[in-house]
Every structure is written in C-alpha cells, then in structure tokens.
C-alpha cells in the first residue's frame, strides 16, 4: 500500500502557545497551513501555566522594557543572547495587548487595566526595588492563553490534525527540511506531510526526570527529531528545577504564591531565604531558591517525618486573596497534598520544570546550525517555544518569561515563514521517507524483550539521581555510564501490543526513544561544563567562569559530540550589559 501524502505550504508541529501563535500569523495570509498535535490542542501543556506572562506594561508601578531586559540578562547568568532578549522584552508589550484583544480574560485592576503581580528576579531601575511585571489571569494564565489562541485559530479556519504524532522530519541531501512523517493515532496509519516550511513547536521534556511538573506528553519529541536530522541542540545542561513542586508528587505551585506574599520556612519555622538572598528573599531567582531548599533538607532542617521537604506558607494572605488570585493552587494543594493552603502551609520540594536549552534558532525563529567557521540557517526549518533555544533564558529562566518566549517567537516564526512560502516545493527525498518509516516499523518486531515502561522508569530515575540540582564530576561520570547502558538496552525493547487502532503503547515507545536522546544531551553537556552558572550547579566548580565558559554548548547525537559557540553580547539598539556577579 502506498504511503498517503498531503501537501501544505507550512507545517506546524505542536499546538501549544508557540505553535498556535505561529499558526495565527499564517492564517491571516492565504497560505495553506497544517497544525499537527499529538493531543487535542487545548490539552497541550501550555494549559498548565499558572502565574502569568511578563511585559513591562507598568500598570501597577513604573516599569519599562529596558529594566525587563536587564533582569532577563542577569537572570540568564549572562548566557542569554542580548539581541534576542532585547527583541523579546520590547515585543512583550504589544504581544500582551494583542492577547488581550484576542480575548484572554486577564484579571483586572480597579482602573480596568490588566492585573500584574510580582515574580522572582524582577526589578525596577536595573536591580533596584521589586517590580510587578507578570500579567495574570488568576493562577490559570496558561489555560486562558491557550484556549484563546485555539479559539482565534478556529475563527481563522486553521487546518488541524488532532491526535497525530510526528515521527521524524524528512531532509534532502542539501540538508533542507521537506516536511514530516506523522502517524494518525486513531487509525495507526502513517501520513507524509510535505511543506515548504516546517515549525517545531513541541514543547519541553520534563519527563526525562522522575519528579516533574511536566505532563506525560512532554517527552522532547521535537528536539529528538532535530537531533536525528543532524541538527545540534544547545545548552541542554541548563534545566530548571522549580523550587515549589508538591513534595513527593511534583505538581507545580506557582511562584505567584511568593509574588503575592507567601514565603518558605524550614522545620524550625525559620524564613530561611533571608540567609541565602538577603534582598530578594523568597523572590530570588529560581535556581537560587531551589538550591537553598535542597541545602536546608540536606543539612537536616527539612520538615515532615522524613525531613525531606520545606513548607510554603500563605495562609496569612487571607481567604479572600487566596480565592481570588490563587484558586487553582488551593485546589491542587487540597487534592494532591491533602492541605487547604488557606489554613496550613504546603509541603514543597524542587521539581523538574523547564528546559532552557533546545534547538538553536535566531530571533526570527529560523533554526541555525554551525557551518564552516560561522553558522547557517537550516533551510525550511523553524523552531519556537520551549523546544527552541533562541537563547533568551541562558542558564536560568525567569518566571513569566516562557509564556512570553513562546508567544513572541511563535509569532516571529509565523511572520518570517511567509517569505519562504513564495518558493516551490522541493522534490521529496524518498530515502528520507524510508528512514522515517523504518523508525516506525522497528516497533513491529515481535518476541520477548524489555518493556517500554521498565526502561523508561529506570532512565528517569537515573537522570534524577545523576543530573539533578547539584552535580559533581563523580556523580555525573557514573550517571553517564548508566545512561549509556540504558540507551544500549533500547534495542532489546519489544512491544507486546502490535495493534493499530489508538495504540498508545507504540506512541510511548517512540516517546521513550526521544526521551533518551534528550537525556543523553543533558548528561553529556553537563559533565563537560566545569563551572557553576544558573541552573547548572557544580559543587566541585562552585564559581562562574566567564573566561572559559561564557559560551553556548552544542550537542550532536552522532557520537555524543560537543561543540561550542559564543554568546551574543551585543543587543540591537542599547548598550550591552557586561557580566557581573549575580546577587539577589
């Protein structure tokens, strides 16, 4: 039976905030656009974002994009590219207004303007007093944004392929991307989608760690697809552990809780952040707070019978503020911790949360890859959202900057792509299609073998034990050996279920391959980086080393090879922010 083919001008893989905002730009042209998502669009993990999206609207107190830019550069521990950061912080303002015009039900101030709350790492006047820059729809901002973008895409008649799983990109001999092989989950049939431009907007990969705020579907498929197409991934060692996940479970409790006035205490009831960050205290940057919590627990000041977590106190905010501003986390606390946050503190511990690294792009969303002494655009390929690395977050992302990133660069990709669409479709590369089909057919192998879940559990545990909040040479070297063994074991994995219709076991097998590719990229990149910067914390190299390490890591799947490239320290119009010691 011949493979079914469909042709579109543009293919967008992923229907989270990044994919949907890219699609929305295209919908205003007469281009034919396909959006593929492995789940129904409103089930994408953008729906889970709670606290809000940053923009220097200045609705609550004075603010401007330049201060936002300073905070983001500092937050990134000087690994972010300053041209992209300037672009994002400027664009933040029209982006949020556009969201509002599209219908996002933001919370409001008495004067009718959008409500903004304080988040970690935000300051006025280049490091001065706390700013309030995070635009919020209660604590359901991601839900409000995702649903609105989906609704506007319905209005624009975007063509959706819901519950289709992208297997691999198709590349020709010149390295141009021609589209992707996808699988219709319901029927189990493959489909080839040809496109002049393809956007990867597949989100993050928190599932590589055992305890995570990320959904079951966050398996890094886009990064792994890029890797298999020969594109490197950048800065993968920088993975954010959010300080406040529900202890033992991982569900997120937004930083907005601390923004509204909540704070952390240890078993002695001490407000310990005062010791680690005398000025910003509980609103220090996430990497700082996560390390503080782990240190408290390690040094025996943890709470609970096993002394394995700390407490997040917010009952003093009062019933009214909590039910108005933080209704979602109250619900989550009740369900998963059995605690009513309006009465008792919540048990929390860091949870694997966000990938700073990803597929390298420029600020137009175009994927770039090293070539000769410089770099060049991968023809026909874009990436946006958490799977991309522009890089605006560098070594540590500030809360509220990811929703911003996905929207700003999703749109930038959508706009830039329109140029590409004037060209003709390139001829299909049949060998490339066969390769992608082989990846699918590999799972038809029958017989006894290791189970998908078994290997996945082992891999996620190994990642958690060996690539977590604190990383030493010893722990990581041992970890890498274990991970390599687990990767080798992949060839012994067999499915027992070979049916076609809605075969989720097969999907999970394909996801496992992707997880392992992402996990290896983290482990290899992390072991090599001999310094502490942002989320990458090495007790054996406790200081940041700008002379040797102020550079981006590039990881290639082929032979686990590493390469490096310089940080872009020149903004577009303003003076650069030179590296300084980072204190909060």
């Amino acid at each position, binding site marked *: 039976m011949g493979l079914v083919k469909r042709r579109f001008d543009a293919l967008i893989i992923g229907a989270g905030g990044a994919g949907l905002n890219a699609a929305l730009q295209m919908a205003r042209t007469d281009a034919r656009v396909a959006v593929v998502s492995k*789940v*129904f669009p*409103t*089930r*994408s*993990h953008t*729906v*889970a974002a709670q606290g809000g999206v940053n923009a220097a*609207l200045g609705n609550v107190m004075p603010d401007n994009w330049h201060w936002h830019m300073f905070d983001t550069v500092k937050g990134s521990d000087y690994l972010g590219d300053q041209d992209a950061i300037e672009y994002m912080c400027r664009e933040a303002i029209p982006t*949020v*207004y556009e969201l*509002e*015009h*599209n*219908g996002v*039900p*933001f*919370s*409001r*101030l*008495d*004067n*009718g*303007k*959008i409500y903004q709350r304080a988040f970690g790492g935000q300051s006025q006047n280049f490091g001065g007093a706390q700013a309030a820059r995070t635009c919020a*729809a209660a604590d*359901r901002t991601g*839900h*409000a944004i995702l*649903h*609105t973008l989906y*609704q*506007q895409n*319905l*209005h624009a008649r975007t063509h959706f392929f819901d519950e289709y799983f992208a297997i691999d990109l198709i590349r020709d001999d010149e390295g141009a991307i021609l589209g992707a092989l996808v699988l219709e989950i*319901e029927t189990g049939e493959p489909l080839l989608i040809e496109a002049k431009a393809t956007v990867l907007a597949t989100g993050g990969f928190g599932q590589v760690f055992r305890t995570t705020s990320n*959904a*079951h*579907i966050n398996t890094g498929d886009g990064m792994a697809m890029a890797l298999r197409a020969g594109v490197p991934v950048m800065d993968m060692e920088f993975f954010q552990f959010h300080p406040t996940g529900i202890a033992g*479970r991982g*569900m997120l409790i937004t930083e907005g809780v601390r923004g509204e006035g909540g704070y952390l205490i240890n078993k002695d009831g001490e407000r310990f952040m005062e010791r680690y960050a005398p000025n910003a205290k509980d609103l220090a940057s996430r990497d700082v707070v996560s390390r503080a919590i782990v240190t408290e627990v390690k040094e025996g000041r943890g709470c609970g019978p096993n002394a394995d977590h700390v407490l997040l106190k917010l009952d003093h905010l009062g019933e009214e503020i909590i039910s108005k501003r933080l209704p*979602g986390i109250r*619900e*989550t606390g009740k*369900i*998963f911790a*059995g605690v009513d946050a309006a009465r008792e503190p919540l048990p929390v511990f860091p949870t694997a949360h966000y990938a700073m690294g990803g597929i390298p792009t420029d600020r137009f969303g175009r994927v770039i890859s090293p070539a000769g002494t410089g770099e060049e655009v991968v023809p026909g390929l874009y990436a946006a959202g958490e799977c991309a690395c522009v890089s605006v977050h560098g070594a540590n992302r500030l809360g509220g900057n990811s929703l911003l990133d996905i929207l700003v660069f999703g749109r930038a990709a959508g706009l830039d792509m329109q140029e590409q669409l004037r060209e003709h479709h390139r001829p299909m590369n049949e060998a490339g299609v066969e390769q992608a089909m082989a990846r699918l057919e590999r799972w038809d192998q029958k017989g006894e073998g290791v*189970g*998908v*879940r078994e290997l996945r559990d082992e891999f996620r545990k190994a990642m958690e034990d060996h690539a977590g909040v604190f990383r030493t040479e010893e722990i990581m070297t041992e970890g890498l050996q274990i991970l390599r063994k687990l990767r080798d074991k992949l060839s012994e994995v067999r*499915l*027992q*279920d070979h*049916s*076609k*219709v*809605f*075969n*989720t*076991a097969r999907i999970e097998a394909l996801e496992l391959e992707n997880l392992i590719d992402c996990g290896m990229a983290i482990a290899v990149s992390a072991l090599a980086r001999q310094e502490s910067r942002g989320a990458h914390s090495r007790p054996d190299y406790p200081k940041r080393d700008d002379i040797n390490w102020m550079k981006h890591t590039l990881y290639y799947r082929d032979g686990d090879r590493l390469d490096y490239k310089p940080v872009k320290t020149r903004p577009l119009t303003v003076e650069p922010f030179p590296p300084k010691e980072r204190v909060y």
Partner: protein
Amino acid sequence: MQFLVSRFNPERDDKPRQQSFEVETWRGMMLRDALLEIKRQDESFTFRHSCGEGVCGSDGVNVNGTNRLACITPVSELNAPVEVRPFPGRPIIRDLVVDMSQFYNQYRAVEPWLVRKDPMPEQEILQSPEEREKLDGLYECIMCGCCSTACPSFWWNPEKFHGPQALLTAWRFLADSRDQAEEERLDALEGPYKLFRCHTIMNCVEVCPKGLNPTKAIGHIKQLMLKNAI
C-alpha cells in the same frame, strides 16, 4: 483493590467486555495512577491522559456510573470493585477512548471567540474587576466533556443540541463586556434544539470536575433572550 475496566479493540472485538485487574493502592493514589498500574500489567490497555493535575481535560471516564477526571479522583473515594467505562453515548474507539468529534463540533458551532467590532485601542480594552468577575465560573472550562456526555438531551440529539459545554462557552462570550456580538450570538441559539433542548436535568452541574454550572449559564442565556424580546 479490584478494578473492572471496559475493554474494546475494534481489530479483535465485536463489542465491549469487562476485564478485572487487581491493583495495589497507596495513600494519595488517584484513579489515573490505578489505570497506569493496569497499563503496566497489560500494555494494550488504552486511555487518554496527560497533565495529571486536572487542567488538560484528557482523562474523563465513567467510574462507578459517574463521569469524572481520573487524575483528580482519589481511589479512596471509590467503592470496589471499581467499574471504569468510557464516557456514555459516544462511539468507542478503543477501551476507554471515545470519539469526541461531535462534542468539539458543538463547541465550534457557538463561534467560541471574542468578537470586537470597534477598532482596537492601542493598549488593553478596559474592563472593570466587576465586569471581569462575570467570567469567573465560565472561562475555567477545560473541555473535558464530563458534562455533555452525562446529559440525556445530548445523548439523544448530539447533532442538534449544543450540550452543556458549548452553551457554557456561549454564555462565557455573552457575559464578556468586551464582546460585541450579542445579537448574532442570541439569534444563532434560536430554535427548538440548540439551546432549548436543555431540560434542566442538571447532570452537568453534578459531574463538572471544575465546579462549573452550565445549567445556570443556560438560564442566563434564556433570561437575556427574554429581556431582549420585550
């Protein structure tokens, strides 16, 4: 704890059957954890799920006769044997996975997007906290489908009756001070079916995992129609 789960694989079965699984429970275990445990025992067992915290709306199932979200349903609240079936009234694709297209069609049919006719201001469209408060209890819908697939009027007329979810959404836009399509929205709801098939049976209110009240929203729409008619 014993679980009786509904199984159906169209490549093999003519009709759904029940299969029993024994699952060891732990403190704080949710129904989704139990379903994952069953999938560990038999990887061919199939259900949708994703966020695991009640916000993505993927894992609605019928448990002991009631539609619920598996990931926020503690097993400690359930009586054994726990009977888990797909949502009633929808075509079954496999095991607990049903075809929700009709439900999504009804959502699309109410034109669920903000309509603004005035030119957009440079900044945000202003909205007072009181006006914004009218959207609370409406915008939080996660489209899980627990309500509409528990509604007898939707079972009998899924092509013609919008169902509680879509009507809640219609009211979400009618109630938004920024929306400027009230007349068109109300006109589109005229006729004996789309809106008026609601017989206030209130199953939707009982099952909504987000504590929303579609029946009340439907009442508001009817009131507004009445008001505009006089």
